[in-house]
C-alpha cells in the first residue's frame, strides 16, 4: 500500500519537474539509440569495409561541403559520426551497466551481511571500505588496470580489455553500496518484522534478501543512478587516458581521445560532437539521480 502511494506521488512529482522530464527523455533516446545501434547506424564502425576514406573529414550537414548522407559529418577514416557515437554509447553503456551491476551485487551483499552479522565480519568489511574510500575511484581503477596488464599474458590482453575495464570500474564503486546497505540494514535489524523472522528460525539469507532488502531499496536506487553516471565517467576517463579500450573498438571516451588530434585543425566536430553527447548523457543521469534522491528523502522537499 505504501509503495503504491509512493509510486503515484513520484509520478506526480515527475510530471511536474521539467528538468527531470527532459533528462529522462534524453536518457531514453540515448538508451534506445545505443540498444538499436546495429539496425539504425549507417555504417558499422568496426567493419572496415563499410566506410570509405573518400568520405573522410566531411563536416556536419549545416556546413559547406557536407554530404547530406552524413548528418553530423565524418572522421578522418570516413566513418559516419552518428554511427561511431551510437556504437560508442553502446559500449560505454554496456561497460557502465555491467560494472554497476557487479558493484551493486558485491556491495549490497557485503553490506547486508555486515549489517546482519555485525561484529568482526562487519569490522573487517568496513575497514576495507575505509581504505578504499581513501583512494579515489579513478586511482583504484587505474591500479587494477595496471595489475591486470602485469598478470595477464599479452596474447589474451586485447580480448579481455572490456572485461578488465568493467571489473576495474566495478571494484572502485562497490563501497558506496556496501556502506549504504549496511547502514540501512542496521536500522532495520531492531524492527519487529526482522526480529520476528529471525525468531521463527528463518535462514539468514532469507531474512536478508527477502525481508530486509526490499525495505532498503530506496536509498540503493539513488546510489545506482549516481554511480551509473560515475561508471560512465570513469570509463570515458580511462579510455581518454588511453588506458581503457583500444582505438579499434571506440567507446565515447576513445572517440574524444581520437578527436583531440583535431583540436588544432578545423575539424571541430570530430571532437566536440562525441564530447557533447557524453556530457548530455551524464548530466541527464545526474539530474535523474537528484530527482530520485529528493523523492526518497522527503525532508529535502
Amino acid at each position: 500500500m505504501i509503495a503504491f502511494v509512493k509510486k503515484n506521488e513520484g509520478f506526480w512529482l515527475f510530471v511536474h519537474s521539467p528538468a527531470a522530464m527532459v533528462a529522462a527523455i534524453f536518457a531514453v533516446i540515448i538508451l534506445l539509440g545505443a540498444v538499436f545501434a546495429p539496425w539504425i547506424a549507417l555504417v558499422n564502425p568496426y567493419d572496415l569495409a563499410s566506410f570509405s576514406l573518400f568520405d573522410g573529414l566531411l563536416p556536419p550537414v549545416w556546413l559547406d561541403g557536407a554530404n547530406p548522407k552524413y548528418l553530423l559529418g565524418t572522421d578522418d577514416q570516413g566513418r559516419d559520426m552518428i554511427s561511431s557515437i551510437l556504437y560508442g554509447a553502446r559500449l560505454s553503456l554496456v561497460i557502465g551497466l555491467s560494472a554497476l551491476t557487479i558493484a551493486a551485487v558485491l556491495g549490497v551483499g557485503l553490506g547486508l551481511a555486515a549489517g546482519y552479522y555485525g561484529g568482526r565480519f562487519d569490522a573487517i568489511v568496513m575497514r576495507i571500505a575505509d581504505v578504499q574510500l581513501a583512494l579515489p575511484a579513478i586511482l583504484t581503477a587505474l591500479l587494477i588496470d595496471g595489475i591486470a596488464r602485469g598478470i595477464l599474458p599479452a596474447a589474451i590482453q586485447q580480448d579481455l580489455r572490456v572485461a578488465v575495464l568493467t571489473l576495474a570500474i566495478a571494484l572502485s564503486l562497490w563501497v558506496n553500496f556496501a556502506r549504504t546497505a549496511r547502514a540501512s540494514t542496521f536500522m532495520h535489524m531492531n524492527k519487529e518484522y526482522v526480529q520476528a523472522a529471525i525468531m521463527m528460525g528463518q535462514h539468514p539469507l532469507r531474512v536478508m534478501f527477502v525481508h530486509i532488502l526490499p525495505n532498503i531499496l530506496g536509498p540503493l536506487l539513488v546510489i545506482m543512478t549516481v554511480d551509473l553516471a560515475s561508471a560512465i565517467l570513469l570509463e570515458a576517463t580511462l579510455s581518454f587516458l588511453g588506458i581503457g579500450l583500444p582505438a579499434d573498438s571506440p567507446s565515447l571516451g576513445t572517440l574524444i581521445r581520437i578527436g583531440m588530434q583535431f583540436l588544432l585543425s578545423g575539424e571541430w566536430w570530430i571532437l566536440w560532437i562525441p564530447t557533447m553527447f557524453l556530457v548530455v548523457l551524464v548530466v541527464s543521469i545526474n539530474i535523474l539521480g537528484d530527482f530520485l534522491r529528493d523523492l526518497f528523502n522527503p525532508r529535502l522537499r
Partner: protein
Amino acid sequence: MVYFILKRMLQSVFVMMAVAFLAFSLFRFVGDPITQMTGVETSVEDQERLREELGLNDPFIYQFLRFTGDMLKGDFGFSYRTRQPVADMIASRIPATFELGVVALMISLLVGVPAGVYTALKPRGVLTQTILMTTLVGVSIPTFVIGIMLIFIFGVQLGWLPTFGRGGTFKIGAWESSLFTIDGWRALLLPAITLGVYQLTLTMRLVRAEMMEVMRSDYIRFAMARGVPMRSLHYKHALANTMVPVITIIGLQFGGVIAFSIVTESVFQWPGMGLLFLESIRFVDIPVMGVYLVVIAFFFVLVNLIVDLLYVAIDPRLRIRDV
C-alpha cells in the same frame, strides 16, 4: 591530547604499513622481476644465481621487511623502463604536481567558500539559483572535457595561454618552480583551473549545506533575537563555526586533487607525478607504480594527520574531551 596525537600517529603508521605491503605484493607477484631485469639471452643458471643473490628465494616476510627497510632509507629501487632510480624519477616530478595541486586547491577555496556562504544566506536569489544549476552541470562534466574546453577557448581560439608543458621554470635548489616567472604562471593557469573546478563545486556545496545548518541553530537564533548585527552574525558567529568542516574538505579534497591531477596532467602534458604514473601503467613499470602508491599514501596520511591536529587547535571542545 597527547594520547590522541599518539593514537592518530600509530594509526597512520599502520596505514602506511598496509600500503607498503600492497606495493611490495605488486612488485613481487605481478610479473617476475628477474625476467624484467634480464634479456632473452641470459641463461637459466644465471637467472637462478641472480635470483639467489637478490634474495628473491628468501621467505616472504624477510623480503617484505628488507623492502620496507630500504624504503625507509630512501632506496626505492630501479625502474624497469628507464633503469633509473625510482626515487630520482619521482622526486623530480613532485614539484610540478605539488604546485599544480596547491594552486588548484586555492582556486577551489577562494571561490568555493564565498560562493557557498552567499548561496546559503540568499537561498532564493536569482544568482543563487544560477550558481546551483551551473554546479550541477559542473559536476557532470568530466575533468578532461573541462581541460579540452579551456585549451580550445584560451589556447586555440584566443591564443592567450600555452596549452601544454610547464613553461619557464625557476630553480630553487633541486625544486623546479613555475611560481616565480610570468611564463610559468601562464602555463599553470589552465591546468590549475581544470583541476580546481570540480573541487570548487564540492567545496561550495558543502560550505552551503554547513552554513544553512548553522544558521538554523539555536545560538544563531538567540543572537539574532538579541539584536547582534546581521553582518557580525553571518561572518563572525556563523562562518567561524563552519570552519571545522571546511578543514575536513581540504583534507578530503587532497585525495581528489591527487587523483584528478593524473587526468589533468595527461590533458596538458604537465610533467608531474600523475603523468609518470600513467606512463608506468602503460609500460607495466611495477616499481614506479608501487612507489607512486606509497608516496601518494604518505602525503595522504600526512594531510589527514595535520587535519586532525588542526581540529584540536580550532575546536576547543576536543581539547577538553581527551585530556
